[in-house]
Structures are given as structure tokens and as C-alpha cells.
């Protein structure tokens, strides 16, 4: 009886060992670390976007590597970079060494992404950027290709092009004011949060707006976390501006838009207001943000055939508009296609295939430059201008720009109280 018991025990152990070995040997997967500030919208959108992409590929059985399909397993890497930049590099180190991720994507704050990029490059891990806009992130690829070639930026367009689009948007508002209100030289007030990234935009605005036939009447620099800008708005009103050129990425964008609409400051508000890209903006401003125009990456217009299906799917499931960070969806598809073409997970070979990418994503056709940056321009990713019109975020630019009008775009509207004040 005792011998029988021992036999059963040995059999059970052998069986268990066999099952475990089988699992290890055959249940391979591709681990992709999604790095972002997960308590904040940016990180959450990166995660949701990646989930959409991974679910779609896993539904087909996974990524075809050689002759075997490997499912994607996403790993949440909370970088906490909004609150504490140094946490980001540690999070990446942990994801690579403990979670054993094969690839990385995400990142948000430039200063954190620089540190994350260095860690990823040291381990030769491919890192697809989906958040930071600083040109130098890709400039490093040009300067030291062998070290930084594993970095690619999928979104957003780099900040030099953000500036170009910004000026194009101000130009759109200025042209509407010239045409509809008969003001030949619109007066512009520059309002930008006090942050390093906003400085070149302000500088470029001051240099270029006069060349574009506008007069700059003043510059205001509130803190990015200011909770009341009525004093600034009163001063802008007193300066007689017809356009307010905004540059906000922080929460100041909400009280600004709310007070601008509530006080009916007679100047069209155009530029970058990251908070105005979100679905919650309408509710947060109590509808006072009507007519606020902001640069954006996505809207419910047909940039490519992929845009509206993704936009609708994301909005229906998550209850928010996808921000540019949700391009992790495209990043997963781009990576999967490159792996399939390479037939291996070897980083160097996948890099070679990523460099050949031409992918129709939700925000446009993604082609990487020599520096591994996303290409900006007609036929590629253009970014866009969106305006809140009666509770809906509408695409208003490009409309007939370089021959491009995305289907579903509408005409930019000057706020009615601006028309009422200035119409000659």
C-alpha cells in the first residue's frame, strides 16, 4: 500500500513537471511594455490604444514569427513621469529586467523620455515613442545611429512641425476675421503657459505673426497650473486683441477657456490647448469652451480609412475621444508588421524592417524619416485643427490646404460675440 502511494506521488510529480515544461516550451508570447503615466489620461490612452491593437492581432492568433504565431502580451509600465521624472527610467529598467519585455512603446514628458530612451537603448530594446515631441529625441538617432537606432517616433509630429501647424491655424482664424469682419490687420494676444516647450512657440509667433499681416499686442505667461486667468483676460480685453494665440498643455487650459467664454472676451481663441482635445472639456467648462480651437491629432474625420472606425471604437468603449497618445494602436500594428517581415524578434533585424514602414494609421500615413521621426506633410501625418462647435469637436483644418480637405471637416467659425463686437 505504501509502495502504491509512493508510485502515485512520483507519477504526479513527473506529470506536473511535464505539464510545466510543455507550457514553458510552447506558450511563447511577445511582451510589449506600454510605458506611460498610468494614473493620467496620457498613460491611460496609451494603454487603451495598445489594447485595441493587441486584441486585433491576437484575434488572428498573434504575430507571425517565422512559421509560428505568437500572441501579444501587454505589460503596463507606470512611469509616473508627470509627478516624478526619475521614476520613468527606473520603470523602464524594471520592465526590461524583471518583466522581460521584448519591446517598448509610449513615453510622454520629454525630459522623462530622454532618460527612458537611454535605458532602452542600452538594452537594445526597440522603443516606439508615442508621446514626446522634442526633435532631439530623433536627433540622437542621427548623431549616434548605432546606439539610438532602436528608437522610432510614431506620434506626435515633432515640435518644429507643431509650430508650423500652429501658425497655419492662427492664419485660418485671421483670414476668417479679415474676410468676415473686414479687419485687415488682426491684433493678436499671445498667451502661453510658462514652460520650456512653449518658449519657441512664443518666439516664433512674435517673429512670424507680423509677417503674416497681424499685429502682436502683448504676451502673457501664466503658470501651467494657474486656476484663475480673469486678470490676464481682462488685460487682453483692454489691449483690444481680436485673436488669442494660446499655448497650453496644463490644466490652465480649462479655467482659461471657461472664463474666456463666460466673460465673452471678444477675441477668437486659437492655438494649442491640450485640455480642449479631450471629451471632458465640454463638461469641465460647462459648455463655455464653445468655439475654442486647438491643434489636434485626431478628430472624427476621414484622414485615412482607419480614422473613423478607430475613433468610434475608442469613444464607444472608453467613453473619451482618443488623444494622440492612443496611437499606440498604430504602433502595435507597425511593430507587428515589421516583426512579420523580419521573421524574427531580433532587434537589429526588426529595426531594418521598421525603417521601411509605410502604414496607413488613424492619423495619416506613417513613414519614418532617416532620423526615425514620423514624417509631417501632405500625404503623411499632417496634424489637424479642431474646434468645439455646440458640444461637438469638429475638424476645421486642413480645409483646402495643399489640396487636402479631410472628409467630414467643417468650416471654422468665429465666435458670435467676437463678430458682434468687431463687425464693421
Amino acid at each position, binding site marked *: 500500500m505504501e509502495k502504491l502511494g509512493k508510485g502515485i506521488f512520483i507519477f504526479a510529480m513527473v506529470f506536473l513537471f511535464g505539464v510545466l515544461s510543455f507550457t514553458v516550451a510552447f506558450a511563447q508570447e511577445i511582451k510589449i511594455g506600454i510605458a506611460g503615466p498610468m494614473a493620467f489620461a496620457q498613460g491611460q490612452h496609451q494603454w487603451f490604444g495598445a489594447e485595441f491593437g493587441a486584441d486585433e492581432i491576437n484575434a488572428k492568433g498573434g504575430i507571425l514569427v517565422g512559421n509560428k504565431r505568437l500572441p501579444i502580451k501587454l505589460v503596463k509600465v507606470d512611469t509616473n513621469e508627470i509627478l516624478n521624472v526619475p521614476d520613468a527610467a527606473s520603470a523602464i529598467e524594471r520592465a526590461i529586467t524583471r518583466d522581460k519585455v521584448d519591446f517598448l512603446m509610449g513615453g510622454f514628458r520629454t525630459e522623462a523620455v530622454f532618460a527612458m530612451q537611454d535605458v532602452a537603448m542600452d538594452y537594445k530594446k526597440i522603443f516606439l515613442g508615442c508621446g514626446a515631441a522634442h526633435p532631439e529625441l530623433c536627433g540622437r538617432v542621427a548623431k549616434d545611429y548605432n546606439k539610438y537606432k532602436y528608437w522610432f517616433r510614431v506620434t506626435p509630429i515633432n515640435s518644429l512641425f507643431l509650430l508650423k501647424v500652429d501658425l497655419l491655424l492662427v492664419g485660418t482664424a485671421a483670414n476668417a476675421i479679415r474676410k468676415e469682419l473686414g479687419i485687415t490687420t488682426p491684433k493678436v494676444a499671445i498667451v502661453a503657459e510658462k514652460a520650456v516647450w512653449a518658449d519657441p512657440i512664443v518666439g516664433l509667433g512674435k517673429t512670424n505673426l507680423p509677417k503674416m499681416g497681424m499685429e502682436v499686442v502683448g504676451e502673457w*505667461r501664466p*503658470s501651467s497650473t494657474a486656476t484663475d486667468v480673469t486678470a490676464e483676460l481682462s488685460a487682453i480685453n483692454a489691449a483690444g486683441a481680436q485673436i488669442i494665440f494660446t499655448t497650453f498643455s496644463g490644466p490652465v487650459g480649462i479655467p482659461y477657456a471657461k472664463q474666456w467664454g*463666460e466673460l465673452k472676451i471678444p477675441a477668437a481663441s486659437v492655438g494649442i490647448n491640450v485640455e480642449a482635445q479631450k471629451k471632458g472639456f465640454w463638461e469641465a467648462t460647462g459648455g463655455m469652451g464653445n468655439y475654442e480651437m486647438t491643434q489636434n491629432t485626431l478628430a472624427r474625420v476621414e484622414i485615412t480609412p482607419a480614422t473613423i472606425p478607430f475613433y468610434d471604437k475608442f469613444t464607444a468603449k472608453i467613453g473619451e475621444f482618443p488623444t494622440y497618445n492612443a496611437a499606440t494602436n498604430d504602433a502595435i500594428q507597425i511593430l507587428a508588421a515589421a516583426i512579420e517581415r523580419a521573421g524574427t524578434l531580433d532587434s537589429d533585424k526588426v529595426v531594418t524592417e521598421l525603417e521601411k514602414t509605410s502604414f496607413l494609421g488613424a492619423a495619416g500615413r506613417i513613414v519614418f524619416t532617416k532620423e526615425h521621426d514620423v514624417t509631417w506633410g501632405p500625404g503623411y501625418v499632417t496634424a489637424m485643427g479642431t474646434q468645439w462647435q455646440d458640444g461637438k469637436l469638429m475638424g476645421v483644418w486642413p480645409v483646402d490646404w495643399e489640396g487636402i480637405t479631410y472628409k467630414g471637416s467643417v468650416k471654422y467659425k468665429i465666435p458670435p460675440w467676437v463678430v458682434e463686437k468687431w463687425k464693421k
Partner: protein
Amino acid sequence: MVENILINGLIHGGVYALLAVGFSLIFGVARIVNIAHTAFYMIAAYLIYTFATRLHLHPLLAISLSIIIVPLIGILVYQLTIKPIQEHEVTVLIVTIALAMVFQEVMLLLFGGHFRGNPSLVTGYLEIFGVRVSYQHLLTLVAVFFVLLATWGILLKTRLGIAIRATAQDREVANLMGMNVSRVAMITMGISVTMAAIAGVLVAPLSVVEPYMWLHPLVMMLAIVVLGGLGSIKGSLAGAFILGFAETLVVFLIPLGAFLKGAFSLTIMLVVLLIRPEGLFGVVFEEER
């Protein structure tokens, strides 16, 4: 421009006054440096957001519920965490810092790091001497005035007020005279937190509701009470309006340095303290007590 500065300065000063007077009150009575004071202001803002925007309750009901719930939380926190260590002022200071951080993290867990907003109770604006002032700002200013008046009335005209002032003057003597100083401190905590809650519900429609919204008002409030003289209600009022006007002056006179308005206010505080280390009303307050 003068009228712009006057009106905007009054509005900013009014909101700061509400926070600073509540903070001074509990410090004066119980020597509690309640760093979590503005965290209660944050909780009130989140409550009104939850009731009015998420649960779609009537705004007045949402305000009433917030103003009732927050002081209850405040009294509970006082009984459980502050009262047992009340005699150790530095420990209280550290415990209230920890409490504020706990509240912040709880809000981050519950609501995420999103920036929320509340609709105004009344929309539109009024032009006063050519300056556009929103009705919500005016409502805030009027509410601040009445809350401060009510606080003043309670302190000067009621038996409770006499007890609070007596306790502030000398806890031991008040105790020997038969007053339950512990109970007075608890009630004062309730009044102080109620003022923070009122500030929260008034500011919620004007500002952004987020887990870190308590930090900037905390810095300003501390600057105000130090400037006015620690524990002096009169000093807090004066300090609030001085710094409110200082911030507005910076925006109007140095538009490029609008982000420096907080730093400018703190510099004023430093300069005043160098000349008068006890603050503006420090001595007067001692005499009052």
C-alpha cells in the same frame, strides 16, 4: 487699468481670505497647524463635482451635501488623529501633512489624474467700470463677505464665540472656569473645516478640480497667515487682500511675468517679515487675546 486691478484683486483676496481665516481660527484656538486645511477644500470640490456633475443632483443640494459632509470628515479626522496628539504641536503638523497626502492619493485613486470642472451656478457677466466680472465671481465675493460676517458674528456675539475666544486666550484658565476646551476645539475644527468646504464649493466652478489642487492655496494661505500674524483673524483678512492685490498687480503690470505672481506674493511676505517679524497684526492680536 486701475478698475481692473481693484475688481480682480478683491475677488482673489476674497477667496484667499476664506481659507486663511479658517486656518487662523483653529490655530488661534487649539494651536493646531492644520496643513490638511486646503485638502478639505479639495475634498469639497470633489464632492460637489461628484454630486452635481456625476450624479446630476441639483447644484444647491450638491453644495449643501458637500458643506455638511466635509466638516463631518474634519471632526472625525480631528477625533481620531489630531486630538490624541494635540499637545505636541510639531507632531500635529507632521500628521496633518500626512493626512493631506492621504486625501490626495485617495482622490487620485478614485478620480484619476484628470482635470475636472464644474459648471457655474450662474452664467454670464456684469460690466463694472468697463471690467467684465462673471456672475460666478460676484457670487463668490458676496458669499465670502457673508461667511466672514457670520464667522465674525459667531465669534463676537454668541456664547460659543465667547468660549472660543476664551479658549484661544488661555486654555488652562478656560478649563478651570468650567469650559470643555476639548469640545470647544472640536467645534472650532468643525467651523474651520466648514470654511474650507465653503471655499471649495465656491472655487470648484471657477477652477480645476484635480488631486493636487490643495497645494498652491496651501502655500498662499500659509504666506497670508504668516504675513498677517499667526493666529490673527484680522491679520489673515488683511494678508489675503494684500496678496490678492499683489498677484493682480503683477499680471497687469508685468504680463510677461504673470507666472511670477505667486513668487511675488511670497517676496512681499518675506519683506514684511524682515521689517516686522511678528507679522502685520501679530502684536495687535496678542493684545486682543
